[in-house]
């Protein structure tokens, strides 16, 4: 299995992602620098979290124009699964690979804390290891996670089953109090039309062993590895 972690200047969860992928899949991912214009044959590409280009423009806006992204887009169009976590999600929206945008959190502050999200679509390659409606506890660490899209876009992605995760309370109820950043309809993760690209704000790579605060992130990687092998 060939998994690539794309490294942008300012990525800072690239190592964590590689460690998690290797721990769960047994395969060491290849690290691909953002200037690359050609990709090897891949089974999965991951855009990790961090602050690409410092996020000095809109988060992810610069990285979306990195040379490697042209190739990532082309491969995704051919069906390559692409996972974007946190800054990776922001890059995917800025690159037009996922609809909507991630705005500044409604409280205007960076927030790091474990949050609960509910699995809305448990049939994608990313989420089939979870149960429908399962509530998972995974930390967020972002300032720009406030998902927004026009109402008709939201209606469409809801209708197409493309909302992968929603912020919820620990009973699974989707409430305003359990929405950490003001995201429209509590959306924490969305899929593209073919459900082969996922953007997700929480960091599953940080919760793969109980010693570090939980293992709810494992099933996401296990889903992928199961689906791809």
């Amino acid at each position, binding site marked *: 299995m060939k998994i690539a972690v794309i490294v942008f200047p300012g990525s800072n*969860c690239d190592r964590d992602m590689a*460690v998690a992928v290797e721990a769960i899949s047994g395969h060491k991912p290849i690290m691909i620098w953002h200037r690359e214009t050609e990709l090897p044959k891949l089974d999965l590409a991951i855009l990790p979290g961090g602050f690409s280009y410092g996020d000095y423009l809109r988060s992810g806006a610069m990285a979306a124009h990195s040379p490697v992204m042209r190739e990532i887009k082309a491969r995704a169009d051919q069906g390559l699964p692409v996972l974007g976590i946190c800054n990776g999600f922001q890059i995917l929206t800025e690159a037009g690979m996922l609809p909507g945008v991630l705005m500044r959190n409604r409280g205007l502050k*960076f*927030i*790091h804390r474990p949050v609960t999200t509910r699995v809305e679509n448990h049939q994608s390659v990313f989420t089939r290891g979870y149960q429908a409606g399962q509530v998972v506890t995974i*930390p967020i660490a972002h300032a720009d996670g406030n998902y927004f899209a026009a109402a008709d876009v939201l209606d469409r992605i809801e209708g197409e089953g493309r909302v992968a995760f929603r912020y919820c309370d620990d009973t699974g109820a989707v409430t305003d109090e359990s929405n950490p950043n003001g995201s429209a309809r509590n959306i924490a993760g969305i899929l593209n039309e073919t459900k082969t690209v996922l953007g997700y704000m929480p960091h599953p790579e940080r919760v793969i062993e109980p*010693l570090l605060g939980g293992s709810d992130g494992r099933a996401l990687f296990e889903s992928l590895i199961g689906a791809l092998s």
Partner: protein
Amino acid sequence: MTTAIYSAEITPEIVAQHGLKPEEYLRCCTIMGRAPNLTELGVFSVMWSEHCSYKSSKVHLKTLPTTGPKVICGPGENAGVIDIGDGQAAIFKIESHNHPSFIEPYQGAATGVGGILRDVFTMGARPIANLNALRFGSPDHPKTRHLVAGVVAGIGGYGNCVGVPTVGGETNFHPSYNGNILVNAMTVGLADADKIFYSAAAGPGNPVIYVGAKTGRDGIHGATMASAEFDDESEAKRPTVQVGDPFTEKLLIEACLELMAGDSIVAIQDMGAAGLTSSSVEMAGKGGLGLELDLDRVPVRETGMTPYEIMLSESQERMLMILKPGREADAQRIFQKWELDFAVIGRVTETGKLVLKMDGKTVAELPVEPLVSQAPQYQRPWEPTPAQPEITAASVAPPAGLSDALKQLLASPDIASKRWIWEQYDATVMGDTIQRSGGDAALVRVHGTTKGLALVTDCTPRYCFADPVRGGAQAVVETWRNITATGAMPLAITDNMNFGNPERPRIMGQFVGCIQGIREACIALDYPVVSGNVSLYNETNGQGILPTPVIGGVGLIDDVDKAVGIAPKFEGDSLILIGETRGHLGATLYLREISGREDGAPPEIDLAAERRNGDFVRDRILGGAVSACHDLSDGGLLIGIVEMAMAGGIGIAIEALPGEVPVHAAYFGEDQARYLVATNDADALLAAAKAASVPAMRLGRIAGAILTGPGLDAISVMELRRIHTGWLPAYMAAEPA
């Protein structure tokens, strides 16, 4: 030379503006054999500033223990280095960025984090954790809210972006910091013990390389500013505060570590306070050599910069390196990949002089050795701090209601949860954070191993004010206890000495007293000082801060699976109190918050008892007999019990209290050398304590969701949490009065 030489360029006023006393300027002239020009004067000014020369503190700092079997490198380099086994080293230091943070809180705090990160990765370490010790003025002061918001956002803005977890720290409020907040940042890094990089220049002819960000006009004279008191005009110094660029820092970390993986580097030094001046002088001075720099080659952000400005700029995210000959191209390739400036700006010489050239002309020529060795050192006059009376528990009135006193303390600014702050910091990036702020020490796994580093900062300034010797010792022992309470062995400390104006004998007496206390505690606990920083002149309009010697401690545990936190896990476990309770109420939070008094002597420090009790507790933790542990400090026994209950979300029934002490003194006294431990075999633990001559008693039981105890109204843990977490968010959301 017996008289100083002044000129049209160098007038007595110019000399005074550079923070040099007339006799210090005379010494400059003597070293030079002539009057310095303005650039040279600037170099003397920053190198001889309090910030860079430690002129008031050095004679006292020298008395601290700095060696030990685990010490690889003590004070004097960019950071301290200790051996953590398996060929690995922990590299760490704490540093203040107090003055800039008061003037421009976001950038002041952000660049404080950036600076301390550079001190650590300069030595070859990958930074793995940040901590921050913050002191703000009274919550009622009109500026406090703005300063808290800005400092916290700045620390988060920088640390989150570079991707180093912020795992711990502390925050206190006191009116003495109204005009001088304290922002002390600590970084801990990890390196191979045989790949540590030092700063001494070597090899005449070797190229001197500048890497990182470009040089601008920001931060000129920051070091001099940090060496003077504030007054009402200090706001006008805002342009001297640097602006941080954490993205460039992240690139610089990766580029430097990539280059360090090879063997091209002879010496490396970050450009921190006093920028290119201090980095070049220190590298040359330590190597006993000279440097010749061509300032035309320094990458600059703006045109028309003078040699004076280039040498004194404190632009951030810059490094100076000396490479082996012929390695320039290899190194340049790495820095180009990371899109950073890379310039060969000079070479090492045998002249022993720092020679600066621009436009083909020599613009400064200074002998390095005397510039470093003849820096002024003062044995400042000092007065011992008068002893405060010991306050007996019986002489302090009990509160109207014990439960009300508990609630009031829980919601008081120093005890109240700092969650509003630490939720703005990424604490789990890098994937090795086992335990973060909120307990005793933070615990970070050494990547790829089962080892863990326990990290903490501590200081109780009200103790230091009341009795500097006890206060200095207490800061050390509290870090030692915090580390011990996780199961880790405390190894070494870094110290950040924050004080007022050392030219006042009373302030200098506080400094000398704290150093004495720190020394005594470090010796007794085999816990040496390996790095540190001194920040003096923390005064505004003659009002000094409480003496605040912040201690950053580092400990090691071989197997993180054996570590414990403060949260009790099991219903039915017994809660045991380790250590002796005398009900000491002098200088306590109870006295300040409930009785409205700040007098009295702080608790005595019995270093032998600290060591005995701590070693006992650590052995029980490592032996698996303890499921949770918490040391006792601010607020005493009852606050410690409540903190455990809140952390575990589980009730505690207090069934007995230490006898022969009034109840309020038992609950709120701040006697030292004490721990709370949870165990499922109280009898065995009490028997072991007895055998080790460690005072211990069973306090109660862990069960349910309610706190109960003698004299207390039953209160739910949920309600305690609500009170504890409510104050800071409500305070920050409120409009200033």
